[in-house]
């Protein structure tokens, strides 16, 4: 599976985050009547679950806020950064090659230093952020649309259509995204659209599976049965009555996938399978910096750290979204 594993809610919910006092059977020390003081909300097992749950829900978790901040910084950098940074990201300055960042003895004219061709790293970072964000969001949307459509198709029909979609999903899962990317790079011209296509083709299965299962369950729901019995056709039934009820889990998968897509785009650019040569991406910058690793570590360390922080932020935000949608504060 190419996507980051879509962890079921429990996977993140250890007792500290479920908003509920852990059952006393968990308490290992008999002296403690329960894991006292879950972040100071009076976490005694005697406290009523609802009031604790409500109060906890009002206060966003620290991880979620950190994630929000990281993603917001990335978004702002991508949107307005290129307008604020005066340097030309492509301009070479061979006399100012491999200038160190300010904290390593560089000057404020080039705060993050320069690469092996003397290009300003800050200017390249903010332009690269655009590609990362654009590809990450676009690939997630396309994958989501594809997966929801196929999952809805499979979940609201029986027989061979359902089996065909399931089979296609299993074929897809046998082909990891790097493998698909290599195959695509062999046959198609490089481009942002090719990268989005590659990532979307490898990312739809997660949506299709969850939508198929949920749609299957919904088919038996009274309101769906009622709609069917008054003569609502299958297409309208799927789109108007079932789809709106499926969007919660879909949003969870999507929120957890964006960061993975950003990571994959960088990996493809690093391998030279991504966007055309000349397009500035973080993955490409990391690859550029590898040659001068021993003398100028920052050339690849700066984009690498930014990428790690962006993915971390996306993951934290995705986990928060999952917890909110699944009603665990």
């Amino acid at each position, binding site marked *: 599976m190419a996507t980051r594993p879509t962890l079921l809610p*429990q996977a993140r919910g250890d007792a500290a985050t479920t908003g509920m006092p852990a059952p006393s059977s968990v308490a290992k020390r008999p002296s403690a009547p329960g894991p006292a003081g879950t972040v100071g909300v009076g976490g005694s097992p005697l406290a009523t679950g609802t009031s604790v749950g409500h109060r906890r829900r009002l206060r966003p978790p620290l991880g979620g806020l950190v994630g929000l901040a990281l993603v917001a910084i990335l978004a702002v950098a991508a949107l307005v950064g290129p307008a604020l940074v005066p340097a030309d990201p492509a301009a070479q300055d061979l006399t100012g090659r491999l200038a160190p960042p300010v904290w390593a003895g560089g000057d404020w004219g080039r705060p993050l230093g320069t690469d092996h061709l003397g290009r300003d790293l800050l200017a390249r970072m903010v332009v690269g952020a655009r590609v990362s964000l654009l590809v990450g969001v676009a690939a997630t949307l396309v994958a989501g649309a594809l997966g929801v459509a196929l999952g809805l198709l499979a979940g609201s029909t029986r027989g061979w259509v359902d089996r065909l979609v*399931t089979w296609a999903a299993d074929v897809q899962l*046998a082909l990891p995204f790097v*493998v698909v990317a290599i195959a695509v*790079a062999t046959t198609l011209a490089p481009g942002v659209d090719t990268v989005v296509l590659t990532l979307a083709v490898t990312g739809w299965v997660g949506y299709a599976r969850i939508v198929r299962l949920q749609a299957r369950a919904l088919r038996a729901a009274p309101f769906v049965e009622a709609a069917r019995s008054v003569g609502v056709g299958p297409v309208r039934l799927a789109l108007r009555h079932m789809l709106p009820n499926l969007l919660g889990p879909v949003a969870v998968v999507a929120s957890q996938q964006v960061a993975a897509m950003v990571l994959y785009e960088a990996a493809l650019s690093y*391998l030279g399978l991504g966007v055309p040569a000349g397009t500035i991406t973080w993955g490409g910058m*990391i690859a550029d910096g590898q040659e001068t*690793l021993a003398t100028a570590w920052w050339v690849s360390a700066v984009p690498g750290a930014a990428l790690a922080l962006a993915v971390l932020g996306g993951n934290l935000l995705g986990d928060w979204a999952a917890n909110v949608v699944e009603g665990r504060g």
Partner: protein
Amino acid sequence: MIAFALGRLGYALAVMLGVATVAFGLLHLAGDPLAGLVPPGAAPEDQAALRARYGLDRSLPAQYATFLGRAARGDLGDSWSQREPALAAVLDRLPATLALTGAAVGLALAVGVPLGIAAGLRPRGPAAAVAAVVALLGQAVPGFWLGTLLILLFAVRLGWLPATGLDSWRSLVLPAATLAVYPAATVVRLLRASLTGTLRLDHIRTARGKGLPPSVVLRRHLLPVALTPTLAYVGLQVGFLLGGAVVVEAVFAYPGVGQLALGAAVDRDLPLVQAFVVVVAALVVAANLAVDLTAAWLDPRLRDVAVRRDPAPTGRA
């Protein structure tokens, strides 16, 4: 059980048929498959000869049938850039990649399992804090960047380990460590959640209630329940690991199958890429089959699920 196993085997073959179809489709995805092979300005009769030699002058269904027939016998055509059968070229490089992937899985389990258990048992202990950091960072730090940093530290600065190539087991250490980070983080997350969930089950309460020492509860009652979904998940992630291996091989110039495939993509060597696709997919399908059969063998309830396995036994706690 035998009927179940045969059903799963048949389905695995059906999935491989789909994979072979995708591989065949690759050849025609970009229009003329010979575009990269024929030198510009080649005489038309030479082009026609080349076409005939690769069977590209026949109808698409006929080509498809031939491709499938040969693939079933293990013949995926000759590589265009290397003078040898494509499948042999891939299989030749496969052991190096499997060694890398296997070492990474071993490392991920060696780190992830104890950490996940410790974090699951004491959610507020120091191990849980370490586990939280490992789980978060391990899934965020890009492997190709981490590999670069490891080369800088251990190969360039300290000179302890080789940065590239494959000469001895020492060459395996840095790539395997790089590849292990993501699965280790996943194992920690899954096991922590799985243990937290298992701790609430009735039979654990009973085991404790009858006065079993904690170590026995852990070994006999807790781990078998909590570990199985985690191990099954690792088995289902073989494809993801092999994909990651391609990236890690590029960082360390490690002579595995990924490097071969990347080179083939640059050369537009379609038969070699096809063989790579089929071999990786076969490994993934075989691993999934093994996980399914093992799970069904251990837990007879799973045998009723017939052919369709639905939600993969992932992080269910």
